[in-house]
């Protein structure tokens, strides 16, 4: 049974088609609508300068970023749910969102960036701040939760505690911001794909090409870890060491995700869930499915958020939450 069952190949192909459709829709819709035919013509080099500008400089990087960020969050969640054997685990328990959020708000507080337009330096420093904030917080949570070895319940509890503390500091700081900065911080915290520029695409793409294949390489280890610590140890897997590696991988993925996407909370929770329903518990198919689902959801959320109340844009993270909340409740009701 080395071969992947047909129905799974079929479902994954369907997700690829869905992703392409979602990408096309995202390129089409907007204040300036560009029809699929015009998109094609522009790609072939025959578009008007305005169409070129909108497609290449605004929408293309957004679409690619949505795909990358969606994939990062989804795979991070898949790994976390795998190593904790807890289907309600998501990158949020590692303090990714609150840590990144705090770093960004601290930065804004100290440097008062947003009173004018963001300078070039700031556009680069903010994602870096978010990434470092996420990494530091996750590192702190893992360090406190690690007691001679990995215990998923400790990780979850420490995560909840640190998150609560950081959120409190976050609110305290936010209340002292001036209204314009406050709004900016709020938008960021809700998960706006703010970094929609080619620079960020180039910064994130190599990580996608390294980390996602590495996660696939670890698929078998994740499968065996899913049988529980004792069984996995008995099968010769060094569970503590493997869990630590995988935890670092999940943190890196989520850190990269928030640095460009902001606090997109639910994605890392629901994408692995839907994927598991489609492909079953084997990670070699579960991870690709989660990548696709994460990307599709975020793309759709981004497109909807940009268009439904246009010209007002709703952050993609809020649309993701609105879409996922009913699913989340359904999940809780179904959990035995």
């Amino acid at each position, binding site marked *: *049974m*080395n071969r992947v069952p047909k129905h799974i190949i079929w479902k994954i192909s369907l997700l690829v088609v869905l992703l392409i459709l979602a990408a096309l829709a995202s390129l089409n819709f907007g204040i300036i609508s560009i029809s699929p035919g015009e998109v094609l013509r522009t790609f072939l080099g025959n578009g008007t300068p305005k169409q070129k500008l909108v497609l290449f400089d605004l929408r293309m990087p957004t679409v690619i970023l949505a795909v990358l960020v969606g994939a990062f969050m989804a795979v991070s969640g898949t790994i976390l749910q795998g190593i904790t*054997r807890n289907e309600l685990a998501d990158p949020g328990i590692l303090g990714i969102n609150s840590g990144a959020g705090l770093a960004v708000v601290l930065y804004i507080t100290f440097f008062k960036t947003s009173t004018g337009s963001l300078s070039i330096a700031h556009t680069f420093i903010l994602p870096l701040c978010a990434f470092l904030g996420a990494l530091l917080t996750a590192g702190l949570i893992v360090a406190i939760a690690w007691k001679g070895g990995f215990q998923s319940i400790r990780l979850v509890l420490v995560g909840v505690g640190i998150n609560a503390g950081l959120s409190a500091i976050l609110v305290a700081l936010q209340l002292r911001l001036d209204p314009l900065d406050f709004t900016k911080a709020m938008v960021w915290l809700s998960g706006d794909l703010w970094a929609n520029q080619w620079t960020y695409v180039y910064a994130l793409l190599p990580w996608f090409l390294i980390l996602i294949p590495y996660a*696939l*390489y670890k*698929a*078998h280890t994740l*499968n*065996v870890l*899913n*049988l*529980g610590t*004792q*069984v996995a*140890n*008995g*099968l*010769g*897997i*060094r569970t503590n060491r493997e869990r630590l590696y995988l935890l670092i991988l999940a943190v890196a993925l989520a850190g990269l995700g928030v640095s460009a996407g902001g606090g997109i909370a639910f994605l890392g929770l629901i994408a692995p869930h839907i994927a*598991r329903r489609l492909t*079953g*518990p*084997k990670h070699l198919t579960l991870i690709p499915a989660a990548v696709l689902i994460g990307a599709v959801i975020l793309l759709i959320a981004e497109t909807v958020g940009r268009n439904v109340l246009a010209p007002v844009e709703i952050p993609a993270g809020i649309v993701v939450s609105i879409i996922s909340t009913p699913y989340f409740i359904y999940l809780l009701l179904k959990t035995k």
Partner: protein
Amino acid sequence: MTNLFAEELTIAYDNEVIVDRLNLKFSPGEITAIIGPNGCGKSTILKTMARLQPSHSGAVYLDGKLIHKTSSKEIAKKMAILPQSPDAPEGLSIYELISYGRTPYQSGFSRLTTHDCEMIEWALNVTGLSSIQHQPVDTLSGGQRQRAWIAMAIAQETNLLMLDEPTTYLDPAHQLEVLKLLEKLNEEEGRTIVMVIHDLNHAARFADHLVALKQGKVIKEGTAEQVMNADVLKQVFNIDTEIITDPRTGKPAMISYDLIK
């Protein structure tokens, strides 16, 4: 034949000594049953000797090599351990579960070799699960589920098989089914089997060698006749027993017992 023994093994949780300088050897090619009251350290000893938990001091040797200096993967090629009531993720099929038994022989992207597939087929056949191999483990009955886990452990292709209470939560027929499967593996394949078990009559019936433990110490070990008698059981479990020879099996069997006040 795989040889496993503990020498002066001390196990402690948070400075509380559970097992103090234990010496224990499992004879190759035999079925050994470990019996003893709740909390006597049976499971702890089994898990420590299978390197699933650390020891405080002393040593465990597997084929003459110190177990904590041997790579976990090497150990997994010689010894399989099935913990008590393991749990499979939702939707995992029997075949997939058994295929994980081949983990010690795989690396990286881990495609199954022809030999891996042969071992999986064999484990399916011997446990009588071939016809339902694509069913998810979480939908099986208790007896089938336990057989699926045993199939995973034997697909690991080890001479030594350790099981922690393999018959817990099973009805009498399924308990016997599991034990007869282990007996068959021992007789036909010459596998060494060590199990922790609560049912004394089953221990006496199926084991070549019994180890009776109390408070982390071996009170008595030997054949069923040597261990299953009123004196030993009184000392180990603090019960007053009626032992007869089972007309079916010729082994000692406890027909009645009472607490000693």
